[in-house]
Every structure is written in structure tokens, then in C-alpha cells.
């Protein structure tokens, strides 16, 4: 399987402070990879660096194309959708308008209406609330909306930053189930940053573990789940 994302010697900076110290990894197309680690490990930073939201150096290849020199808007147009931490909802726009914004940069093919129908298929609650102002939605619904907005782009790669944050376990389980469906049906590769390690390990094929800006562990999720020592020392359970 060709690699959808190849990152080499990635360093990232907030002002003068270096937050990532030469992280390297690769993701296969169609796979689900999760990045785990404690607070401040650099997980969100990694996603931001890929999307050129912060200053970075090193090489980033998306489906073979070098993207480290490009701006956020161009990277998005190539097919990377980023669901940021906190969901990034357009709180004053309606649900439907949020989805339309998501389709702004889409790659060619299919009408916006079709995609909206598909997305409502994954998240029927959004169809019910389509004319509601997005700021009035619950946390879980906003997360569904954020994922849907990302899907409207018809991305090849979906970056998710802590989708479980602040949500009830039942809702999180539902969202993760749908993520798996999206991955399988639409072939969207997923790079998932999570603190909820057990849920993430259930969903993902591959795992990377970050600690203070460095990659300390990488492997398949099966192996990690079975290795008690690693699990206990790094993931705490």
C-alpha cells in the first residue's frame, strides 16, 4: 500500500520554543493511525505542523507530494481535512452552512447536496438540526458536525485532534464507530490524536507514542495492547 503521509525529521516551533524534536513516521493509505501521549507531548503540535499552522522544518510528504513549503489553505485543497481540538465550529452559522463551508475547497466531483446526504446518513441527528444555529448544539453534536464538515471536503486524509474531549462515553463510542465506517466505506485515511488510549487502540491499526516532542514508541496497536509492560508504563493501564 502506498504511503499517504510520510514525515521525516519534523521539528515544530511556537515562537522560539521547539516543541517537536525531529519526529519521523509514515502512514499507509487507508489505514487508521493514532498518536498517543501525555499532555504537552506534542500530539496537537504534530497535526498543526502537518497543516502548516505553526512554524516547522523537516520534510512532509502527502501521497508522494512535498507539502512542507505550502500554506494551510493549499494543503487543505490537496485533500487533508483537520478537525481541530475544540471542534472549531462556526457557532453563528447553521448546521447546513457549516457543512457548506466544509465543501468550499473540495476536489472535483459530485454535488454538495449529495455529500450532505451522505453525511446525514452517518449522523442523522444533524439532519434533524440542519437549520439550527451550530452554537446551540451539544458537545457531541458539534463533534459530529466537525467531522462531517471535514468529510464535506472529500479528504483523502482526516486529522482528528482529541475527538473524545469533553464528551460522554456513549457519544464517543458512537463517533468512533462511525469513524471506522468512514474509513472502510470511503477509504479515508485517519490520523487520530487521542488521550483516551484504550478507545484509540481499539480503532487504530498503528500507534505512535510521543513524549516531550519525541517519538518513543511505534508499532501496531495489537502488539501494544498485548504488551502489558509497555501499556502500563506509557499508557497507565
Amino acid at each position, binding site marked *: 500500500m502506498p504511503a499517504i503521509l510520510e514525515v521525516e525529521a519534523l521539528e515544530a516551533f511556537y515562537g522560539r520554543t521547539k516543541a517537536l524534536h525531529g519526529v519521523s513516521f509514515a502512514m499507509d493509505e487507508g489505514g487508521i493511525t493514532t498518536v498517543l501521549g501525555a499532555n504537552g507531548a506534542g500530539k496537537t503540535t504534530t497535526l498543526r505542523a502537518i497543516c502548516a499552522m505553526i512554524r516547522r522544518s523537516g520534510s512532509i510528504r502527502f501521497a508522494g507530494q512535498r507539502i512542507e513549503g505550502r500554506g494551510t*489553505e493549499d494543503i487543505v485543497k490537496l485533500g487533508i481535512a*483537520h478537525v481541530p481540538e475544540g471542534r*472549531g465550529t462556526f457557532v453563528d*452559522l447553521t448546521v447546513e*452552512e457549516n457543512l457548506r*463551508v466544509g465543501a*468550499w*475547497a473540495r476536489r472535483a466531483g459530485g454535488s454538495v447536496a449529495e455529500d450532505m446526504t451522505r453525511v446525514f446518513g452517518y449522523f442523522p441527528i444533524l439532519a434533524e438540526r440542519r437549520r439550527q444555529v451550530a452554537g446551540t448544539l451539544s458537545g457531541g453534536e458539534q463533534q459530529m458536525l466537525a467531522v462531517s464538515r471535514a468529510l464535506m471536503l472529500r479528504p483523502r486524509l482526516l486529522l482528528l485532534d482529541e475527538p473524545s474531549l469533553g464528551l460522554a462515553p456513549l457519544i464517543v463510542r458512537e463517533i468512533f464507530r462511525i469513524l471506522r465506517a468512514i474509513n472502510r466505506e470511503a477509504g479515508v485515511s485517519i490520523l487520530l490524536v487521542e488521550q483516551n488510549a484504550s478507545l484509540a487502540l481499539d480503532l487504530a491499526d498503528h500507534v505512535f507514542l510521543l513524549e516531550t516532542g519525541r517519538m518513543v514508541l511505534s508499532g501496531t496497536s495489537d502488539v501494544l495492547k498485548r504488551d502489558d509492560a509497555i501499556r502500563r508504563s506509557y499508557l497507565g493501564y
Partner: protein
Amino acid sequence: MDVFLQQVLSGLATGGIYASLALALVMIYQATDVVNFAQGEMAMFATYLAWSMLNAGMSYWLTFVATLAIAFVAGVAIQRIIIRPVETAPILTIVIVTLGLLVILNSVAGWIWTYLQKPFPSPFPREPIRIGGIVFGAHDVGEIAVTLVMLALLFAFFRFTPLGLAMRAAAQNPVSSRLAGIRVGWMLALGWGLAAVFGAVAGLMVAPVLTLDPNMMGGIQIYAFAAATLGGFGSPVGAVVGGFIVGITENLVGTYVSFIGTELKLTVALAMIIVVLLVRPAGLFGRTVVRRV
């Protein structure tokens, strides 16, 4: 009763002008937290360009459209060339830049076209119009019509087109907009362009009434501030409604309260600002901002 209705309509006409300029101010403020102090002068400059075109023999409506087009391009250019270099600077720094622009435009206009007042034609007939047996000035009626048409077009643009939606998104949430592939910088530039268009409309509509001179828009801009404050600086709808209310109030107060002559009329606008700020700072349509800590 007739006088009352006439004054109300007249108030709506001037209100339309305040509404247009207030809308321009609010559009830019909403997207950038910056009050463009040069908005009135930009409108004045556009009106002078129209005057030159009319003087060269162009027909009115062609000049109208050409002026709006030039205003749009100029607004975009000003944002990209003059405002962008200080985009990330403190708000007051950017405000000072707009003040600099104000002063430059005023001075250059005076230099090119002199400070002598120039008459400016109205596209509407001189004969008054009769509606329901009451006589109204044709310019007033025409002004209201032009304002309403422009507002309707703007509303339709923002509501129904993808570009309009992208602009709204960029103003509300620049970070998420970038993640949707929207070039936020260019959306801001477009906002400045549209604001300039509405400023130009205000200028073109008021010039026949006030006669054209470089300081023409100064008083209007103060009324526009009053309108935006009343309606709520964060709300385009508020700016428009505020503009009409200010216009009607100004006219009615001027007609029915005897000691308010023309100089004190401005004080009415100022008093409105103060009262609104004391009673309800966010304005009629604004929302009190609750900042999450």
C-alpha cells in the same frame, strides 16, 4: 399628519445614507475589530471621481456603476496594500493607519478638486411624487429605493452564494476557515471592497443634497457611528436599522423641537451615542460579549 409623514420619509432617506456608511463600518469591524476611520473619506473620494466622470460627459447610471466598481477595487487594494502590513499590530496602531488614510484622502481631494463646493446632480426628477395624496421629494424616494436595492443585493450575496458564506465564515472564525481552505486574507480584502462600495453609495446619494466638498462626509460619519452604536457594532442588520432610526429621529427632532437648529442636530447624534452606551452598550441587536477565560 402630512408633515409628519413627509419628515419620516425624509428621515428614512437620510437614514439610508447613514445606514450605508454604518454598514460599511460594521462590516469591517466585525471581521477585524478595527474601526475604519477613513470610511467617510473613501466615500468622498469616490464621489469626486464620479463628479469627474459626470463632468467628462458620462451618463449618470453608467457613472454610478463605474464608481461602485472603482470603489470596490480601491477598497480591496487598500486592504491588501495599506492595511495588511500592520494586520498583526495592536488595534490602535491599525486605527492610526486609518486616520492617516483619512487625512491623506481629505488633503489629496482638496488638492485635486479644490475646497470649493461643487453641485452634484441627482438622477431623480425634480418634480415631487404624490403617494396617497401626500407630496414627497423624488430624490428622497429614489434614495430609499437605491439603498434598499443595494441592501437586498448584499443580503442575497451573503445568504445565498458560496463566496458570501466563505466571507461570513472568515469573519467569524478565521482559524477554522483556513482549515476549510478559505483564504482569509482575501476574504478580508473583499470585505473592505464591499464596505467601500456602500460608502460610495452613501456619498453619491448625499452629494446632491449637501453639495460636494472634501469635508462633506465628516458629519455623516458621526451619524454613522451613532447608527452603528445604536444598532450594535457587531451587527450589520443593527447598523442598517440604526441608520434609519437615527435618520428619522434627527429629522423629527429638528422639525418638532424648536431650539435644535442645525449645529445642535449633531449634538442629538452624540447624545444618542452616550445614552445607548450608558443603557445598553451592545446596541439593539448586538450581543453582550461573554469572554471565556
